[in-house]
């Protein structure tokens, strides 16, 4: 891993055309400004993992899962919610 030390206003260049500038530094956070060509995807690491998950989520309806017992289970949740709401209203 390459480690660099930079101050506010300084920047680094990646692959010739991606610029990452240090905008602000606080006690626990760093604000970065990233300039990259339109075709370069810039994302937070945790979001990259979620991208794959979202593709899986988008395929749920295609699995036909809503035509299975799941609907009954969800209806059960709905009923429990209604009971909880009524109990809260009675308190």
């Amino acid at each position, binding site marked *: 891993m390459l480690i660099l030390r930079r101050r506010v206003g300084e920047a680094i260049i990646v692959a010739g055309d991606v610029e990452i500038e240090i905008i602000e530094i606080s006690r626990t956070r760093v604000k970065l400004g990233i300039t990259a060509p339109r075709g370069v995807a810039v994302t937070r690491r*945790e979001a990259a993992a979620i991208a794959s*998950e*979202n593709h899986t989520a988008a395929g749920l309806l295609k699995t036909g*899962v809503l035509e299975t017992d799941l609907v009954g289970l969800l209806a059960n949740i709905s009923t429990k919610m209604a009971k909880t709401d009524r109990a809260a209203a009675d308190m």
Partner: protein
Amino acid sequence: MTPCAEIDSGPADVIQTPHFGQIGWDRTAELFLPGGLPGFEDERRMIPVEIPAHRPLVFLQSIERPDVCFVSLPVRTVLPGYELHLTEDDRAALGLDETRDPEIGTDVLCLALLLPHGGSVEVNLDAPIVINLHNSRCVQSISPSTLSGYYRLNHGGAWEAAC
């Protein structure tokens, strides 16, 4: 929540979808996602669809791509004590006041996407879809902490933490 789309009706805009057939909606029902969703960065407009028989599910139907539709449900149906923690970037994208935390149900709607898991489903409460009820802006708020917010629907119809 903003008015949901209606199936087989004839309001201002209409799309043909593989899952619901023809959907018509009013522009005020649209959700605007400034950055799309991770993996779906170009999907900037969606409509929430509710079907009485499938409540409390909320279907998030892409307007640009009729084949893209997410199934979600309010996070507090999974975890009643769920608290939302938004990053500064999420707050800015949603156009929320920085001085106070938004209230679920009053200021924002917080939905968990359903993921297929075996014959059932699971949700990741560390990556909810958050909708600002005042301006219909929408983001997926992803916790930067370790991903440990998975809950699975068991065969008894209860949600349990997935270890």
